[in-house]
């Protein structure tokens, strides 16, 4: 059985932190998930292909290579908190 530490680590990989409460809640949820998985297991899927899209007829459309949509630098940076010299500015990236 996975423990709180496992979920905290998983969350960290997803770039957020869990409080102790949240981690405990997720642990509980996993128990429910496992029960639900049994319902999935009941269904025999041998030889069945995954359904990735609701409709499976391949399409043929490809976009012509013409410039259509460019936004102004102003719009590109409109929602950015910090910018400098038209670049998005963030604290130093570690890696």
């Amino acid at each position, binding site marked *: 059985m996975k423990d709180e530490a496992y979920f905290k680590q998983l969350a960290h990989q997803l770039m957020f932190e869990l409080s102790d409460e949240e981690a405990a809640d997720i642990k509980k949820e996993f128990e429910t998930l496992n029960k639900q998985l049994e319902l999935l297991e009941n269904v025999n899927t041998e030889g069945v292909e995954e359904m990735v899209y609701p409709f499976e007829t391949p399409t043929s459309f490809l976009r012509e290579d013409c410039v259509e949509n460019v936004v102004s630098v102003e719009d590109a940076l409109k929602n950015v908190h910090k910018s400098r010299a038209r670049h998005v500015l*963030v604290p130093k990236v570690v890696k």
Partner: protein
Amino acid sequence: MATMLEMMKSNVEKNVSEALKKAQDVQGKLNAVVTFVDPTEQLENYNKNGLMAGVPIVLKDNVCTKGIETTASSGILQGYVPIYNAHIVDRLQAEGAIVIAKSSMDELAMGGTNKTAYTGPVHNPYDLDRISGGSSGGSAALVAAGVVPFAIGSDTGDSVRKPASFCGICGVKPTYGRISRYGIIPYSSSLDHVGYFTRSVRDAAVALEVLAGRDDRDMTSSFEPVPHYLDQVKGNLKGKKLAILKNVVDVIENKEILDCFNKVVEEVKKQGAEVKEVELNEDLMKAMLPTYYLIANCEATANHSNLDGIRFGLQKEAKSCEDVMIASRTEGFGSLIKKRFVIGSYGLFEENQDKLFRKAQKVRRLIVEELKNALDGLDGILAPASGTVAPKIEDQNQDDLSDSYLVAENHMVLGNFSGYPSATIPMGEVGGLPIGLNITCHPFDEGNMFDILRGIELITGLEDKIKEVL
């Protein structure tokens, strides 16, 4: 006979300002609006000859509106002002509609109660202590309360069709790809549909004509031509071949809901429709919820990896870029969202995908095949939209694995798995609270779907029902 939407062509300024005022007046009670929109500029430029000329409308807050804050009711998108319009916004405005508000929803559309909105729960006009349903709860409440005759929602598991049932209005989820999703903040891309609310079936037909059509920016949008749907809406049930979804009816415990449904079905038969029963494989029906949960959460986790506090939305101060991302996402996402992401990510790990994500996708195929076979030779499959009336806000979500919950409360996801068009219309009331009837039809057969629903609407007489809140 003019549709309600058509009737709004006269007295546009009055209609719009009244709608806006009403929205503001009921806000304290319904809490359905996130952002009010000033309609002045729109009123100066709207298309007076459009199919929705002068109609005041509301958009769910996961619809990107250029220059107007769009938050998907999440902390992480506080302050996000889109630099582009969703395709449907352009379509609606091209046909003269006037946007007066962005409505509340479950955070990032992940929920069925509208209790998880950043701005707090939305209240049901029929009983302010009850939920409006979700995730498109704000839009449903505003249409039900008579604030606007039309509102956009989105439907990934039943997020338009369930609130429609709880709020006594029409909720439509068309065929997958019928309406472009470009500009709709996603939840689960292979299950997401743009949907909408009206108070009459004929309005629903007009609205689909406005919204539908190919958009090259959405590669999953369909090339199917868009007919004048209203032409097909006669309400003549004679000769229609329908079936009741036995799996749902068999597990509903609420006798009044069943009685109401059965009465409607009897009338439908009297009008000359053939109504039989279909039963889908029980194991598949019980597997619907876990199948949905896995596919939805796995896709959602990836979809929202762009919400990182760097280019838009909530940004926290921190020493390193990585810490900015972590701090922003930690504060910006609600607990429920985090939970969903953890599960979704877990399901996508290479070592788990076969057992989880891919397994769910395989079961999806079997479910859809089962539905396809059942629908073969029929015009539509009917069922009560829900086995309950709107629950009270204070009720906790049960992690219910009972059949009634699994099947009765989740069957409408069949429309999302399959992409088939599905809609809910009011069928009656229980204890003064609305209950709805759901239909699922063949792909791109919306005209026929509206025709059948109109027939039912004529039976119930529940057209343009408004629940005044004040």
